[in-house]
């Protein structure tokens, strides 16, 4: 139960990663979300992903907006600076933070109300700018903190707990991210940790705008018959197109896979995304066919999950702006202030 305090002592046999940290070193305070909330599984997956990648916790900046999902950054990585900003505006705050210090890892956590309703604009522009970040939407199709109103990702025709039918078309943020130029787009399910953890690892190592839409059922308001975001519905309609392994130190493929069923993508930092195909006709290197595939399966009521698209040669906003390698927040008067002699010249040009 999430409201019980976790024991402070570490189990002596807990495995440590390359930095000597155990998973406990990546945890945060105790979650205050409802028992069984999908969001807590996502927090656990983030912890697992960061631990496996042996990321220094303090080198991560975790930012969020407002809502249940946006509360979660307190529940993981308590050695990281966190920023719970205003509703729907995490992307701009994160973009500014990223501009100030390009050396940190930026993790944005948001919800479907936060990103698809009030924050759709900021979501869109962060994607099209190519901000180097991992953008996770914990998508339950409902407003939890205000008790059960539909959000903009709720499918048309789905039913609320009180029986109201949603008459508005649902927004598919993964499709939008694909269209807007995100260079890493995935979708997963909070109940499928085996799929989600590698997707987060891939996003964290990706050098551009990485987006993951995680369907995360709301046990309090959207887990009933007639909902298309319930545990049962998602389990029955989850159509994974591939399985991802993120390999930070490259090793030869030892397992025997049928020819053409494994695709490898080497990223800038040397990490390798190894994709095992589950759907033969799925091509995660094509933005257009990804969009087409996801939408055609959606028309049949299926939720396509996996790494939907990745661009190996992704660049980011800093590359577009040609900013210096040194984080801007480390520059001093010496680099920043032109001084009095330059000012004298400037004055002279205005007489």
């Amino acid at each position, binding site marked *: 139960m999430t409201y019980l305090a976790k024991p402070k002592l570490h189990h002596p046999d807990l495995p440590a990663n390359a930095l000597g940290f155990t998973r406990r070193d990546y945890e945060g305070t105790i979650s205050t979300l409802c028992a069984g909330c999908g969001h807590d599984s996502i927090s656990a997956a983030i912890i697992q992903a960061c631990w496996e990648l042996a990321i220094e916790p303090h080198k991560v900046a975790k930012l969020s907006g407002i809502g249940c999902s946006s509360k979660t950054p307190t529940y993981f990585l308590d*050695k990281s600076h*966190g920023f719970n900003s205003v509703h729907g505006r995490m992307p701009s705050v994160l973009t500014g933070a990223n501009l100030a*210090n390009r050396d*940190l890892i930026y993790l944005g956590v948001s919800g479907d109300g936060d990103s698809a309703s009030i924050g759709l604009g900021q979501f869109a522009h962060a994607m099209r700018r190519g901000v180097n970040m991992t953008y996770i939407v914990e998508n339950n199709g409902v407003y939890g903190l205000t008790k059960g109103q539909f959000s903009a990702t709720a499918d048309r025709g789905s039913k609320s707990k009180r029986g109201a039918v949603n008459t508005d078309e649902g927004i598919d943020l993964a499709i939008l991210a694909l269209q807007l130029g995100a260079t890493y787009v995935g979708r997963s399910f909070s109940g499928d940790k085996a799929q989600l953890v590698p997707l987060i690892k891939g996003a964290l190592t990706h050098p551009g705008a990485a987006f993951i839409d995680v369907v995360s059922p709301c046990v309090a308001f959207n887990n009933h018959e007639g909902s298309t975001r319930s545990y049962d519905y998602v389990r029955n309609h989850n159509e994974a197109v591939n399985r991802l392994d993120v390999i930070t130190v490259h090793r030869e493929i030892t397992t025997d896979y049928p020819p053409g069923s494994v695709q490898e993508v080497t990223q800038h930092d040397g990490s390798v995304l190894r994709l095992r195909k589950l759907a033969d006709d799925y091509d995660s290197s094509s933005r257009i066919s990804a969009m087409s595939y996801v939408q055609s399966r959606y028309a049949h009521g299926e939720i396509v999950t996996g790494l939907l698209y990745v661009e190996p040669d992704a660049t980011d906003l800093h590359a577009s*702006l040609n900013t210096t390698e040194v984080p801007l927040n480390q520059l001093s008067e010496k680099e*920043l202030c*032109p001084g009095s002699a330059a000012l004298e010249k400037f004055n002279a040009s205005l*007489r």
Partner: protein
Amino acid sequence: MKKIQAVNDFVVKFANVNGSGSASANTLFAKSIMRMGVPVSPRNIFPSNIQGLPTWYEVRVSEKGWLGRRGGADLMVAMNPQTWEKDVVEIEPGGYLFYDSSKPLPSDKFRADVTVLGMPLTEICNATYTDARQRQLFKNIIYVGALAALLEIDIAEVEKLIGEQYKGKEKLLEPNIRALHMGRDYARAHLPCPLGITVRRSDRVGDRIFIEGNNATALGAVYGGATVCAWYPITPSSSVAEAFGRHCRKFRTDPATGRNNVAIVQTEDELASIGMVIGAAWNGARAFTATSGPGVSLMTEFIGLAYFAEIPAVIVNVQRAGPSTGMPTRTQQADILSCAYASHGDTKHVLLFPEDAREAFHLTADALDLADRLQTPVFVMTDLDIGMNERLCEPLAWDDSRAYDRGKVLTHDDLEAGKRFGRYLDVDDDGITYRTYPGTHPKRGSFFTRGTSRDRYARYTEEGSAYVDNMQRLLRKFETAKLYVPEPVVKDSPRTAHHAVIYYGSTACAMDEALAELEAEGIALDALRVRAFPFQDSVIEFVNAHDHVFVVEQNRDGQLRTLLVNEGAIDPSRLSSVLHYDGTPITARFIRQEIEERLSAFNVRPIRRTAAAGE
């Protein structure tokens, strides 16, 4: 008819059509007078339009150096048939009207008390040039040549300026000079040169510079160390970010790598602009945005976050006439209250009020220090009059020994040494607490920033006492701000004054002139120019030391007066407003007349007049 006779003291107004290329010719005219050592003060009066609507350029020539708008025009250069009637009316009796006489106009279109100077500009251009654009552009230069002859402007100064403008583009230089001479020669041959109003070489400009406020503001941000600029285009502030970009290309390109020591982002809206500024400042970079009233309205939720979560942010507000879209290309000082108390809940923000471009440079650089020191939003409150007009001002200065004040920030070594850290723990009793930048230390110094209530260690709480403790500390911090913001400028009358005037920002140039005129009339007034909010105690003491104080502002509701009454607990009857808010810059004439009338209502008689009556 008595023609206006004046040397180095008159107003020339150009009535043009927007997009006709008149702006650079008109600037050339103004600068040539300045190069003769005579102070000029030009103002653009332009529509929210790119092409076709009326636009005016008003040049005040003042040997005495008055830079405020005077009102009226002694010479009207009427180049826009659309506004002819209105323009002709505006000429002072005995003044002059210069116009394009290519098409004959009926005599009732003119005034008997005005000297009419017709020049067939279109005819001359049509005869000389075949290209339509050339006909249009050179027409402007031709009239500058004619005006030089009429007003005895040294043609060599105009030529020099054209030479500087087309340096490296010699192909363009020669035809411009030819057009200039064509105008001069025509005027000499056909018009009564010189007029009663003339320019005579003087030495009153000194080493002053001629600069737009937005340009100076942008340079202030460069000198002040801003590395992140996020902005959304809005008149009249866009040229701040654009000028920042230009200055950065020059000053912020790393010579070794060619990479930029700055990041400038044109955002999707003002919400994103302020969001990025807050994100960058949270992460230890100096960041600013430039906007105008409607942009501030959009930013208010974020401004409340920055206030409550205590994150530095510099917001340049180049004010324009509101409410709503208002008059986007007209000036006002109407965002004082909306900025001072921006956002829901109990909030107060630091405001700085530069009087001109020079002070905009300095206060923008200072604002970046103040925002870091106070960990809160700081507004630089300029306006369209300052921002979008070239103004004569003292040269910009910088002390090379100046170090940026980054405020209370704990470093890795501080944390390693075990220095106690509570993000909202007031250890120095000044209301300002220590912060850490993300990524500073592997084990210590991390905290969670939020817009929700928190305790001294940044832990979420809805405990009433913790909330009140925090809100009271924020008030303490605002008190501390008084020690850091710029002091007011006091100008005491040489005589004992029972009345006083308070003013701020772009009103200063008109106020200086009005004060001199009132003083000459024997009216003693002490004056105080507010440069910042929160008001120092000296501002409140100044009010209390006088029987009555006029607060001169460019808005309808007397916003600074409201702020003074509210924050200084001042009896409202001690303060009365002198308000000018039609979108044009306030004039000395207006201030003087208003104050004279109010004082006579108080039965205050000028000392000199009283003395004269006794003789």
